[in-house]
């Protein structure tokens, strides 16, 4: 800085700033829903931040205690409404664990394909909205939505609905896919990398993005583990913890894929880890559509439970099923008392727990960076508040 005026400003430290308490949200376009942050500012720097949530609280867990096991399935769509199928997956796994239902081979593959397509949708939309938070209004979002639309059309053909899919059943999936499904997934697998290349050309080496995102909102490794952070946020901090690799649930043990990790744990790493994860998802998809066998899509017990939900007998006990949802570890803790309804139904929502470290990441940052740090955690309020 050679400007003499600014040098004078530096020398005069008499310009005291006043502490200012600002309530960001809940009606704020960049809080990704009705989320509130009570921020204390010193000039432009954040010195305290308290997240306030609950504006979208529907007492999901209490509602489910009055539902049959199957009737909970469409409600899980509404948790993280960008990734309905990933939520279905986790819930179905937990109930299958509790009731001991087997899943046929073809259904396993369909589940993995749908879950990975959901991951693509989530990450591509996140990247778009992160850029929106940065101030690149709607160009990247609309590029992302254009691609997302192709996947949503596919979802509509398979499940009947674009977003609220309600596709998984205990012991399989609701119905077999249309005959051109594999072809269309293959087309996506071929086309999507080209789109990703284009998006990366637009963003990855863009100097404006680099200077806004690098070294902003750093999350240290030790804190990330201690605070139970999962998903891309954890991996951006440099810990290769992916439940698909660790638990090998469903059939993830059969696929070859790498777990991308970041180095610095800043906003830029979180962005880039997601781009790399999408490329790995495409790898999984390619392997899955090459290997998918023919056969039943739902087991006999499952088909009966789907046709007559009251006949599903879930033995007494509790189970915890967890999957690697696009936002992190999504777990369902279920307690059954032997009646037709869950006695206790708890959702371990990844974006809710990832918010624990929001204050730690934001302290000392500028107020404009708070928005992108929140954006990079990737929260969906349907899941945070439940």
């Amino acid at each position, binding site marked *: 800085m050679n400007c003499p005026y600014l040098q004078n400003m530096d020398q005069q430290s008499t310009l005291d700033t006043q502490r200012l308490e600002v309530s960001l949200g809940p009606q704020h376009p960049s809080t990704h829903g009705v989320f509130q942050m009570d921020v204390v500012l010193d000039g432009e720097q954040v010195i305290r931040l308290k997240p306030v*949530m*609950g504006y979208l*609280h529907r*007492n999901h*867990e*209490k509602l489910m205690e*009055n*539902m049959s096991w199957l009737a909970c399935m469409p409600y899980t769509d509404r948790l993280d409404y960008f990734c309905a199928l990933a939520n279905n997956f986790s819930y179905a796994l937990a109930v299958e664990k509790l009731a001991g239902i087997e899943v046929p081979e073809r259904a396993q593959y369909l589940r993995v394909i749908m879950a990975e397509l959901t991951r693509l949708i989530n990450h591509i939309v996140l990247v778009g909205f992160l850029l929106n938070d940065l101030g690149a209004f709607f160009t990247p979002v609309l590029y992302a939505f254009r691609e997302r639309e192709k996947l949503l059309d596919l979802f509509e053909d398979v499940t009947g609905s674009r977003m609220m899919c309600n596709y998984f059943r205990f012991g399989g999936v609701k119905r077999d896919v249309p005959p051109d499904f594999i072809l269309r997934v293959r087309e996506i697998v071929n086309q999507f990398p080209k789109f990703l290349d284009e998006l990366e050309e637009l963003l990855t080496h863009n100097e404006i993005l680099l200077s806004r995102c690098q070294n902003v909102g750093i999350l240290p490794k030790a*804190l990330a*583990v*201690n*605070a*139970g*952070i999962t998903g891309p946020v954890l991996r951006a901090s440099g*810990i290769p*913890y992916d439940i698909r690799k*660790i638990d090998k649930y469903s059939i993830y043990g059969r696929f070859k894929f790498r777990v991308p990790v970041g180095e610095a744990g800043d906003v830029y790493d979180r962005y880039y880890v997601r781009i790399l994860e999408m490329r790995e998802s495409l790898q999984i998809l390619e392997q899955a559509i090459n290997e998918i066998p023919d056969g039943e899509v739902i087991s006999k017990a499952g088909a009966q439970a789907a046709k007559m939900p009251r006949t599903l007998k879930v033995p007494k*006990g*509790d189970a*915890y099923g*967890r999957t690697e949802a696009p936002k992190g*570890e999504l*777990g369902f*803790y279920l*307690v059954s008392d032997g009646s037709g309804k869950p*006695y*206790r139904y*708890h959702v*371990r929502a990844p974006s*809710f*727990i990832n*918010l*624990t*470290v929001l204050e730690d990441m934001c302290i000392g940052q500028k107020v404009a960076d708070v928005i992108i740090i929140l954006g990079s955690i990737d929260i969906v309020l349907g899941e945070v*508040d*439940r």
Partner: protein
Amino acid sequence: MKTIEEIKQAIETKFGVQISIENNSLLIPKEKWPEIASFLKTDPEYSFDYLSSVTGTDYKDYLEVVYHLYSMGRECGPLVIKIRTDRNAAQIPSVVSIWRSAEFQEREAYDLLGIHFEGHPDLRRIFMWEGFVGHPLRKDYVTEDQDRKI
């Protein structure tokens, strides 16, 4: 990962407490919980550094808090720990100082089930508003539309 029996043995000899195993989970007395928790986290043989889920269940006679522990370093888990407490004066020592991930989840359990976590730095309601009466996930909570029977 060590079996649940071995973990039970190790805790019993170290802390001199009686632990029972119920449905693949350890039932731990609440008085010793913070010490046992920091032992499970720091001991290199176990190193359960990742507390995945904290939640509670109302069993009408008592409340039960469930912890699911995993180890990120050793890539093993889960170790399920259950602690029972009286329903009318539900109090359990907080583990926020050991695992930060308990911070919001304990607040949630306090809000929805009315379990007081002693030593929690900021135990307020998290989803329901200030001044809300009752704890919705308790089984005796009266909902507004009781007439809609299923």
